[in-house]
């Protein structure tokens, strides 16, 4: 179905169909499969959440295609964008992780994975992976860390980040609720795990209301020093 992918506008959403004349459809090697990913870092935990809908154009390919991939015991990556590139990219990351483990006899830390992913993405600067990545995990000191990437490898460490089709809707809400931006006279309490999980659920329910590519179910991976726990919450299916 990539042959008709030229009908997409810049941000991946469908362009209006022109009935005023012939439209040339060129082959494009990319497709946009939708999906939203979100990551939050706390004092001693990190959350990576994604919806599980896989869509293309007006169709839904699958209602059970989560976008979080577990990399190590302390790191999870969320990838949204073009599903083909997501699969290949995670395959490459997993292979590189194994190579590192065999030559260095230890697992890669979150920061190291982030730096490596940056060079992997930039290696394809002239034919990029169409993937918006967010890595969530614990750093060497046990504190939560979130690293967000653009498709060509620019990255930095954040406290929270939303990526994917509903990112423009979710990011301002997170700025306000977690970053306390643009609020006066507010007591800035540190974020607890329960509050963060509840916030993520609320935020995805809102995203599913207004973004057609987000919905079906929400999968949250909660990373603490005890390990990685998963929670699945249903969302709107329409």
């Amino acid at each position, binding site marked *: 179905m990539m042959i008709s992918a030229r009908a997409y506008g810049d941000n*991946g959403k469908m362009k209006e169909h022109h009935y005023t004349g012939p439209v040339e459809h060129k082959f494009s090697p990319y497709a946009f499969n939708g999906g939203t990913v979100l990551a939050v870092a706390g004092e001693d935990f990190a959350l990576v959440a994604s919806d599980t809908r896989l869509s293309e154009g007006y169709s839904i390919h699958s209602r059970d295609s989560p976008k979080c991939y577990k990399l190590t015991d302390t790191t999870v990556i969320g990838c949204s964008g073009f599903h083909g590139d997501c699969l290949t990219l995670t395959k490459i990351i997993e292979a590189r992780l194994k190579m590192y483990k065999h030559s260095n006899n230890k697992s890669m830390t979150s920061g190291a994975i982030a730096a490596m992913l940056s060079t992997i993405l930039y*290696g394809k*600067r002239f*034919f990029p992976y169409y993937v918006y990545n967010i890595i969530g995990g614990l750093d060497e000191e046990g504190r939560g860390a979130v690293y967000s990437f653009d498709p060509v*490898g620019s990255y*930095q460490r954040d406290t929270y980040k939303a990526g994917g089709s509903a990112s423009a809707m979710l990011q301002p809400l997170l700025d306000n609720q977690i970053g306390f931006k643009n609020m006066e006279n507010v007591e800035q309490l540190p974020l607890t795990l329960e509050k963060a999980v509840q916030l993520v659920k609320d935020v995805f329910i809102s995203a599913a209301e207004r973004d057609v590519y987000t919905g079906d179910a929400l999968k949250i991976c909660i990373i603490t020093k005890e390990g990685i726990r998963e929670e699945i919450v249903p969302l709107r299916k329409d």
Partner: protein
Amino acid sequence: MALQDVCGLHNSPLFPQWSAPLSRSFMPENSTHLSGGGIHGEAFSTRLPGRGGLSPLEFYMPIAEYLTESPINFGQTSLTSAPTKLLEIDHLHPSLPSISLPPPTPFPVSPSVPLPFTLSHGTTTLGFAFQGGVIAAADTRSSCSGLVACPASPKVLPIHSHLVGTTSGTSADCALWKRILARELRLYQLRHHRRLSTGGAAKLLSHMLHPFKGTELCVAATLCGWDGDDEKHEQPITEKHANTPTNQMTASNSIVRSRSRICGPRVIYVCSDGLRLQGELFSVGSGSPYAYSILDSSVYWGMSVQEATEVAREAVYRATYRDAYSGNNVDLYHVTAKGWRRRERENLKEEYYREKERERRVIAY
């Protein structure tokens, strides 16, 4: 095997498949040898185990025709459009199949792959030298055609203890090339037991970017550093200027200028077009015209550190005020003979409200 290749395990593929990565191995000294045969020959014949020691990063070069043709027609594309260049390849490597790669010029000049997303652009950065060192300042907004991708991105990146670089252009390009430059400078330092000068670093960066001229790579960096490892020489100059009355300043200025050819503060602008300029004051980015107006009127060689910091901050603030693509915070670095020092990141929203308050008070009285 395809996965191994893409992962960068160095088993050199003798027969490149249509999707095999073309690796670029080149030395900065040889970067002017862009004749097809030379580089292509090196890429295949001198692949050493581990990092070749020379390539900054392996880049995957897409073959333009294959990406714009539907896969249904795949395999039927003929490459007879450039027969002379095919002959060149056959002459060097008779083992290569005749359906071979497009001519080994660096890259197709037109951007071959239509991207479905835009990359981050838009900024205000500045750097200037004065008697007390070098100031490098930048805003922190990273925008992506209308959306603020990141309100707190660092645009002034330290490269080593005495060199700081401001970044403008595509943020991924700037971040990665700075990382590559930092690695090359560190290797130089280990091999030659001294730091490379700012001019040398600028030349190295410029030569590393040269093969990518004409592609969509966009890097415009200002390297701000302090040269010279002899700290004793610098101290008398700074003391003299701290208390010098104006009529003596011009005489001592000329002495400082001649000494600073060897060591001292240095600001050099490097651009991915190939431009490399040394100067005393640079501002780069969409907000640079606004910053220049403040800098041109207030910067002079004899200013104190306090004044210089104020001016830099004011220049970035004014630029963020008027330029939509600059905003959020201002980062400021000060480089002296002892190294770089980072000033606390300041949120310009507060400054905006303080100024409004001042205006309101002035009008009220």
